[in-house]
């Protein structure tokens, strides 16, 4: 049981203001580094000296990490010396290099993870801003519509949209983006409702500022921060959602690699070759965790700045 009052043992160590980097915390910087690495690798995917992600090496199926094999370099007609190939993370059930597939799969996950919240932010956030500011019956109708979509089971909606639009990365992004719109709408609307009552908005009105100007210059800058923080959290949800879709076979169609698909492929070999599922799972875990930590740290920073001691 803690004692009721705390004593100062030695003098408090740091009588100086905490710099920004410290306030964000170690976790934030580690997370940022991981995300930076993933993004860098995804963008520069084709430049690395790795085997093609869809090249199947039947001599090394489900090989453990660190396996080195000899691959014939050119076609059968050429007598070039075989090349040593290092599978850093091993291969999957069809002999494809896991590392290469991870890097190319990162493109899919990041595309889904980053673009879908953007759709939600722009459409949902924009609508929420308007609904919270103008109110009226139209806003109520919109809010009810959003609540309906929110209440609908997401997976069923996704299935419906992908069935209608067809498979493919773009369609998945659109479908998931539509799913995130209601949540952003609610965040934007709630914040706008609160801000629209604040005195500085009234002061701007009293100075003669028109409605559109107030919305863009007074309210939007203040709503942006909570929306961005929320968007970062949605990124991690979307990465998982894409993974789940791929796992179920509803995601990006093969041969494009994706993390969820990679996890799915390895699930029958979990006992014999666990690395096939676990490595992509670990990478996805770290990525999602990093986005969460970044979102948390930024939210803490935003709260701290607005508040006072």
């Amino acid at each position: 049981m803690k004692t009721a009052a705390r004593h100062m043992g030695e003098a408090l160590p740091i009588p100086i203001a905490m710099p920004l980097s410290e306030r964000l915390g170690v976790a934030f910087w580690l997370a940022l580094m991981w995300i930076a690495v993933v993004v860098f690798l995804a963008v520069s995917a084709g430049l690395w000296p790795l085997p093609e992600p869809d090249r199947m090496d039947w001599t090394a199926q489900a090989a453990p990490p660190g396996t080195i094999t000899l691959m014939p370099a050119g076609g059968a007609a050429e007598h070039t010396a075989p090349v040593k190939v290092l599978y850093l993370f091993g291969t999957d059930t069809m002999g494809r290099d896991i590392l290469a597939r991870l890097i190319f799969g990162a493109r899919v996950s990041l595309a889904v993870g980053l673009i879908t919240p953007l759709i939600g932010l722009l459409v949902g956030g924009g609508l929420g801003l308007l609904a919270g500011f103008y109110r009226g019956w139209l806003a109520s109708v919109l809010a009810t519509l959003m609540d309906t979509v929110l209440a609908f089971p997401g997976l069923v909606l996704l299935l419906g949209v992908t069935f209608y639009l067809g498979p493919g990365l773009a369609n998945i992004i659109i479908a998931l983006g539509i799913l995130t719109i209601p949540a952003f709408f609610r965040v934007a609307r709630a914040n706008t409702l609160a801000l629209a009552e604040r005195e500085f908005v009234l002061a701007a009105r009293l100075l003669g500022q028109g409605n559109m100007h107030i919305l863009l210059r007074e309210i939007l800058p203040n709503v942006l921060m909570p929306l961005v923080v929320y968007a970062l959290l949605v990124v991690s949800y979307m990465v998982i959602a894409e993974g789940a879709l791929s796992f179920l076979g509803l995601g990006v169609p093969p041969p494009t690699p994706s993390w969820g698909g990679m996890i799915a492929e390895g699930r029958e070999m979990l006992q014999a070759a666990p690395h096939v599922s676990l490595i992509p799972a670990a990478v996805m875990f770290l990525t999602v965790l990093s986005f969460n930590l970044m979102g948390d740290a930024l939210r803490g920073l935003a709260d701290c700045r607005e508040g006072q001691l």
Partner: protein
Amino acid sequence: MNAMPSCLLRVENLRVRIATPRGVVHAVDGVSFDLAQGQTLALAGESGCGKSMLCRAIAGLLPAAARLSPDAWVRFAGRELIGLPERDLNHIRGREIAMIFQDPMSALNPVMKIGTQVSESLVFHLRLSRRAARRQATEILAAVGIPAPDIRAGQYPHQLSGGLRQRAAMAIALACEPALLIADEPTTALDVTVQAEILDLLSDIQRERRMSVLLVTHDLTVAGERADAIAVMYAGQIVESAPSAALRAGMRMPYTRALTESIPRIQDPPHTRLKAIEGQPPDLIGPFSGCRFAPRCKSARKRCLAEAPPLLNQGAAGHAFACWYPLGTP
């Protein structure tokens, strides 16, 4: 202030430091005072002078980032409060030391009926049965002047006006007949007519029960009217303390005088120029040198900026102040 024989609360050398992103805030910086049984002591000062933090330190309700100095002690009825385990402190809080706050709405649980909140305290501290506690709660609500107490006991805080809510908060605080009541700006958020009623009620109850009251206020006039002794705080320190009558008769600390003069008085005609204190309230983040009020003081001299004056009992009985060149010296 001299320690009277029936000294209920004694605070020595209390220092509270809080770590913030901007640095270490010295919220309370070396405060010592005594409070006798049945006496009312007013802690007067502006916001940021440390009076609220001082009360929280006494009640053991400091925020997580706050630290007390190791040589501080707070003795209540002979018991040392600092370092007391949470469990024992819980038995003292509410039973022997009670606290009421500035905003009654945040002090009351919005989803619990008034009567239940009062009887909760009785059940926990006095081990009364639910029924007996409820009966006594209604009596206490009547004692604090709430009309139709049996009906009000079944209502929620949002159904009461500001004045009634503060009375309800007082009922909760006084339920177990505490020996010490800490009132942190109890009337600041209320209308002026209600303010007077609440302060009257406080005086009545105090007289009936011989309760000691630590009244925190930013209003020196209220302090002068309702308290036996006044301690004026500035930048976390007590700069002047005296019995009310003595303080009214003659202030020695320039800050106290400047504060009194900057308050508009009813007797003055309209558009009287106020003698405002120049400058800003002090930054509580160190380092400090000299008297904290010196940068804003009209009678400051070189010594004031270099050396911090100690709080000494000078002048008339019980009149202490911290100033090198108090008012009245050439």
